[in-house]
């Protein structure tokens, strides 16, 4: 109950109102959200594939990771901010939306996967940093990360095709308004 009240206050906030009424806010926020998500997936997949030894292991893992993950985090920040902004416009509907919930769940799993990798698996990196088979744990982490982020993209897309949520567009209109 309190949660719903919180969502309602989000929806009636000045920010949400501005997004709903502004001419450019929805399309641009939505485009930035997509841009961020695409950049997260693109940059993290290079790191994930390196863990899987694709295309090879000739570049040190630590170099690949340090080169790319800062961009992943930057993109994540952008995606988070724009995502929160979109959330405020229909917080309660999002909260009850199944694909949205699944997306958040998988996001959590992706975070946990990364945490476990950073805390445990990467400790032995000196042994497999370059020109060596990555350990199974690292391969699993890479594969899971790929699967999780592709799922996040799919669930995100799916939100736009569920009836409940639509930025106030007529329901018979065949347009998706969510990334």
């Amino acid at each position, binding site marked *: 109950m309190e949660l719903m009240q919180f969502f309602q206050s989000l929806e009636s906030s000045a920010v949400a109102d501005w997004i709903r009424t502004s*001419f450019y806010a*929805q*399309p641009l926020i*939505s*485009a930035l959200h*997509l*841009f961020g*998500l*695409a*950049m*997260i*997936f*693109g*940059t993290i*997949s*290079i790191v994930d594939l390196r863990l899987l030894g694709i*295309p090879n292991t000739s*570049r040190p893992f630590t*170099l690949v990771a340090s*080169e*790319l993950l800062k*961009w992943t985090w930057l993109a994540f920040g952008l995606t988070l901010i724009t995502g929160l902004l979109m959330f405020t416009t229909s917080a309660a509907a999002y909260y009850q939306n199944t694909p949205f919930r699944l997306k958040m769940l998988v996001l959590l799993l992706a975070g946990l996967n990364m945490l476990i990798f950073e805390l445990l698996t990467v400790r032995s990196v000196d042994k497999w940093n370059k020109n060596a088979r990555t350990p199974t744990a690292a391969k699993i982490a890479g594969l899971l990360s790929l699967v999780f982020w*592709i799922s996040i*993209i*799919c669930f995100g*897309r*799916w939100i*736009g*095709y569920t009836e409940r949520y639509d930025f106030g*567009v*007529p329901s018979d*209109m*065949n*347009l*998706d*308004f969510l*990334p």
Partner: protein
Amino acid sequence: MYRGWEVTLRSFAEWIAGTGLSVLFRSTEWVVPALQSIHLAGVGVVLASLLMITLRILRQTHDQSLVATTRRFTPWLWGALAVLFVTGLGLIVTEPERELLSTSFWLKMLLLVIGSGIVLAFQRSLYRHERRWEEGLVRHGRVKAMAVGTFAVWCGILLMGRLIAFDTQFWGGLTQQVASHAAN
């Protein structure tokens, strides 16, 4: 209000919409979101590949030569573009009017031609004049500006892709059905 090319486009879109494949795709609910999801993942691969080449030109990364970096990422870039082409074609077949009658779609195609042209020209020049690029060109401010500009063009392609869904709102749009809805 219709100009000639709009009539042609509209009848072309209607013809596509009447084909068996289009009808099949439209009657299958998950086709559009599935195609769009793969499309977006492909956009991620394209942008990340371009980012890596751009960062090398900006000397943010330097353990590999420009040629090595470009050889490393252009296969991903063109491979992902092939995926984008196929999924994009699938989306056009499914919802031809939504795509072909939107201003954003045609701006996207224009930017796509420009963006691909720059990348192709860059690749050709780089492989032909490897030493000139590695020893001089890559340090030129103009080349760096060009690299950033190219990345911006590709971001513009993503933006236009997203704007297809907001076409009427943004450009006034060609799709009458949507226009009448927006007026409600």
